[in-house]
């Protein structure tokens, strides 16, 4: 056994049999701190998950050629046997009405819907050639976040936590935040621990009320009374540990201490009043349009500072089969400024080099139109499109100001440097210092991994 394998089997042993088979007291608690396979560039990941599928031809992938084809079907040769959720393959082209501009030294073209990101485009690598295998939301979301369209596999955040543990003493290592009006269609599927131990599951933080479920004391208990109660529990547990000799009881005692600290720390984390007015304004906390996503972005930075390993922000939804012009403009308004502010804030604080930021949805949208009502052109929309879409990555381990991959003239298929979502996953793990082929867990007789049996690191986008 190599050292890494030995560490892994010990970890599996601890994780699976955390309850009473001789695991050391703290070994299983959030899995402690573990070692990467090789030196990591990123310590934390912030995944800005744009649920529903943002339209790449309207945001990141300018296609002037489409104007010529407007209102005509795509050439047969291109369509092949592509399948869509609703429209037929002979649906008509709808050229984007956006204008694209180059801004910054790197000259990345970004749509006028994203002025703030355009101004920070020198910080990101834009990948225009992402593909997925899934044409529907739930399988697509599971594919992106869990590496398989089948429900029940662990999510990326759970894998990261399994591989590395957390560095936070007071907070869960994998936190999920929501914005936009609803939860993602795959719901808990995108932050599940799957078959990994439940300590690795994402903890949803709520923006109102208790940020973590049952964080507030029960009625009648203030902080001092809670301490008193936990002290009593600790002392009785401690006596029982001596009687039974079971080290797992020490682990339970420790979990109460962590819970107690979390009760103080999580509300402190949510208290954004300590941030300067300038910071708050930069994230758009002053405007009702940007406040929700802005708060989540700012919280993400504060969690990174506190050692949280993986932060998933889900913004739902970009699923505009109809009324795309109106709804996409609104989503861009809500998310553009905060996402750009997050990049700049991380950079200014020296955290961007150790934090990987990823932006993307489960697929993109068709260059063709989906017409619900031909008499009202303003209601036009686009269908799901997993055959070529855009994502961007920035920070820990990723090159700055680069464009990777190319689509064909119609933005329909990939022309150069195809990047499958498994490759994105392999690259994210790589930035964290994890080899996606070695990060495995034995379940139902098989060694599973995030990237299933595929995926390779996209070396061209690494710094």
């Amino acid at each position, binding site marked *: 056994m190599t050292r890494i394998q030995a560490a892994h089997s010990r970890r599996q042993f601890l*994780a699976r049999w955390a*309850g*009473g*088979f*001789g695991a050391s007291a703290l070994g299983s*608690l959030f899995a402690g701190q573990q070692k990467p396979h090789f030196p990591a560039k990123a310590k934390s990941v912030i995944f800005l998950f744009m649920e529903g599928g943002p339209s790449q031809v309207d945001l990141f992938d300018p296609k002037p050629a489409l104007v010529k084809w407007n209102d005509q079907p795509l050439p047969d040769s291109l369509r092949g046997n592509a399948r*869509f*959720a609703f429209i*037929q393959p002979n649906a008509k082209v709808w050229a984007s009405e956006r204008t694209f501009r180059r801004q910054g030294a790197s000259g990345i073209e970004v749509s006028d819907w994203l002025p703030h990101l355009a101004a920070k485009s020198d910080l990101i690598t834009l990948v225009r050639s992402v593909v997925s295998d899934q*044409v*529907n939301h*739930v*399988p697509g979301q599971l594919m992106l976040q869990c590496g398989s369209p*089948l429900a029940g596999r662990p999510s990326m955040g759970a894998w990261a936590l399994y591989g590395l543990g957390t560095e936070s003493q007071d907070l869960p290592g994998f936190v999920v935040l*929501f914005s936009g009006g609803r*939860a*993602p*269609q795959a*719901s*808990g*599927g995108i932050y*599940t621990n799957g078959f990994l*131990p*439940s300590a690795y599951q994402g903890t*949803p933080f*709520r923006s*109102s*009320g*208790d940020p973590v*479920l*049952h*964080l*507030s004391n*029960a009625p*009648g208990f203030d902080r*001092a*009374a*809670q301490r*008193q*109660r*936990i002290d*009593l*529990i600790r*002392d*009785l*547990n401690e006596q029982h*540990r001596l009687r*039974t000799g*079971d*080290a*797992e009881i020490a682990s*339970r005692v420790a*979990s*109460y201490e962590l*819970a107690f600290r*979390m009760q103080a720390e999580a509300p402190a984390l949510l208290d954004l009043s300590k941030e300067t007015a300038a910071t708050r304004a930069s994230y758009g906390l002053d405007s009702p349009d940007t406040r929700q996503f802005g708060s989540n972005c700012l919280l993400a930075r504060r969690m990174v500072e506190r050692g949280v390993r993986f932060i998933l922000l889900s913004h739902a939804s970009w699923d505009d089969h109809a009324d795309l012009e109106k709804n996409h403009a609104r989503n861009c308004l809500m998310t553009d400024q905060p996402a750009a502010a997050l990049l700049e804030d991380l950079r200014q604080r020296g955290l961007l080099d150790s934090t990987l930021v990823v932006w993307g949805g489960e697929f993109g949208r068709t260059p063709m139109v989906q017409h619900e009502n031909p008499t009202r052109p303003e209601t036009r929309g686009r269908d*799901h499109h997993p055959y070529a879409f855009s994502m961007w990555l920035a920070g820990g381990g990723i090159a700055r100001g680069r464009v990777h991959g190319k689509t064909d003239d119609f933005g329909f298929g990939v022309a150069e440097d195809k990047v499958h979502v498994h490759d994105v996953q392999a690259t994210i793990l790589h930035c964290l210092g994890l080899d996606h082929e070695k990060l495995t867990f034995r379940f*139902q*007789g*098989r060694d599973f991994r995030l990237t299933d049996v595929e995926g390779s690191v996209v070396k061209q986008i690494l710094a």
Partner: protein
Amino acid sequence: MMRCAAVVFVFTAAFAQDAQSILAKRCQPCHGAMQQQSGLRLDGRAAAVQGGYRGAAINPNNSRDSLLIRFVTQGVDGKKMPPAGPALSSAEVTTLAAWIDGGAPWKDMAVNESRAKRKHWAFEPLRRPALPGVRNQAWVRTPVDRFVLAKLEAEGIAPSPEADGQTLARRLHFDLIGLPPEPPRDVDELLRSPHFGERWALPWLDLAHYGDSDGHEQDHTRPFAWRYRDWVIRALNANMPFDRFTIEQLAGDLLPDATLDQRAAAGFLRCTLTSREGGIDLGLVRDEQVVDRVSTTGTVWLGLSLGCARCHDHKFDPVSQKDFYRLYAIFNRSREVNPDAPLDGEVEAHRASLPQYERRLLELVGPRVDEWLPLFEKRMREAREDASKHPVWRIVYETYRVWIDDADHILSLPPRKRTSKQRHQLVRFLVKSRPPVLWDELGIKDDPLRGVLAKLEQLDDSFPGISELPSMAEDPNPPRTHVLIRGDYKSPGIEVDPGLPASFTTARASNRLDLARWIVSSENPLPARVAVNRVWQELFGHGLVATSEDFGTRAEPPSHPELLDWLASEFVESGWNTKRLVRTIVDSTTYRQSSRVRSDLAMRDPENRLLARQNRLRLRSELLRDNALAVSGLLNRAVGGPSIRPPLPASMMQLAFRSRWKASTGADLYRRGLYIHLQRTMMFPQLTTFDTPDRLASCSRRSQSTNPLQALTLLNDPVFHEAAQALAARVDREAPGGLDRRIDLAFRLCLNRTPTTAERERLTRYHRDRSRDAGDEQANIGLASALLNLDEFITRE
């Protein structure tokens, strides 16, 4: 031409030997006697012509049309052969092509045509081992003890003393009925208790991956899923023989004169997920369901990861991809049905109110619905036949199929042959979809059904319906089954017939009943071994085979192989008597040992595989809740019935995609955890925090984690707070007088023992401090709550 061919033949005859040597060197390692990747053998002419899952590998006399040549030149689906080592040189390709064009003559050599099944303990026939001799005869209560003690004596390890009576009573109660020993009962009573079935349904429902919702997208509720859960509880309580238990779940509907109860058993196969996402590919959904049925059957009864063979031949176990799709073909012959299965009193109420319902329905949708329906149906039928003719109608039709169970069947029936229920389903879909294209074609200007849906749903809710139960039936026109290349249902390979794994049996099977009967036949040693191991796992925390889901060649061997086989033989010979098996184990000295951790074994046997003691096991999430409700006197012990929904924190609601969580009221709030509604995409947090699996796939072993969210739940969750309040009040009521008496009673209720002096002192000190700050009542609550938080309280020792 003739002349040409003849010349080529002479020419290629010389190549035959070379071609065979290329095949031997570069192809046969994966496509030969030892392995047949993709079902292909290239070590004989007939086998090569027959080909693998993609069809014929060579087409004699036509190299250009031979898969083999395409694979070694440009590749197929991005896959080029051979996958390892250098590509074939152009000279080698020419050799192969010339050989094929010359008719592919084969120089005979002896080949072993059958695929040898490797010798592996789990696949060996079941033989009842002799009982081993032991020195310490006094230790032996049941034959189980001989096997365990013989091994301990051989290792020179002394077993642990028996656990004290109170601990043992608590252990037996939690293990057999999942409730604390209040009042205490003996083993016979526990085995007869109606709560036995509830307790033992828990691991079985994990295996079946039972849930109360679709699992995908909107995650619709399945209002009648509980009928299967109730069947499991009843079957376990009745001690249904395990072979019967197996057959009814896999094929209850196919038994002669199947009763509704037997059809409910087949609800096992309905625990698969469904998607009702608009635009979803129904072929994909069905493929996933059938794959799930095969894989789950493999895990549950065979202890084999059959799912591994979905995309390729199993890498370690003797299951080929073809075997997988032969099993797939068995399940592919069935369709999902939801027969009416009225509960007591439903039929009368339904019949009485039917005329009134029809009248109100007509008022709602208007009399013109009869003019709309024929066109509506006709267009959907047309769109079904030809997807491209009416693209918009195709969307309507596909949505119909996604939303309505048994959709195609209803659409195909002539209107007068439909039941009123089927007709209502069509009307309901019309009201729900009300496609603009219909009104256009009918020349109706304004959508006449706008706003009707809400009223219709209201009407449906207020109308006494007939309960259904989810089951299966054979499809009169089953689809053909093909090997799916790399598991992709859009890449069909060769067609296969229903059948059993070839290396395990030569028996034939054409439907689920054949399969189920083969599974529990005397020919198959796996199910008995797998089943007794799971019972052992429940009673000790880990199985004799640690990987209870995997008995394949990569599994760790059993810690006590003879004991496993003795239990399995005994189980079969007893007529698959589950309660008797449980009894044999819990009566043993091995089971009754203390669970105290022994420092002398920390290095030698850290995982306690040798069983020189019992194990401390944290209670399952459901039982942990039951326990708190039971000791506080709140628990509602009713058995069976529809799922209940305890209140969900408001902040949880925003997390689900579209949730309709209507909290239960009254006594339902205090039902056992087993009955909590399992909304798969938004599992009840109290359960998942304590490791309830997500029920998306079969789970044979729960993980057991310790984390701070558990502490927050036990400290602050309103249910546990309410239990603490109730416990404090109960203690106050039942033990009036001094604090000492209250502490004694609370301790007895929660831990089934009296406190030590140190514990009493510590509790007294807490009570004194707390009542000084907040008064006596708060101090009582705090004390009760602390007991409900103790590691000892949530652990079966």
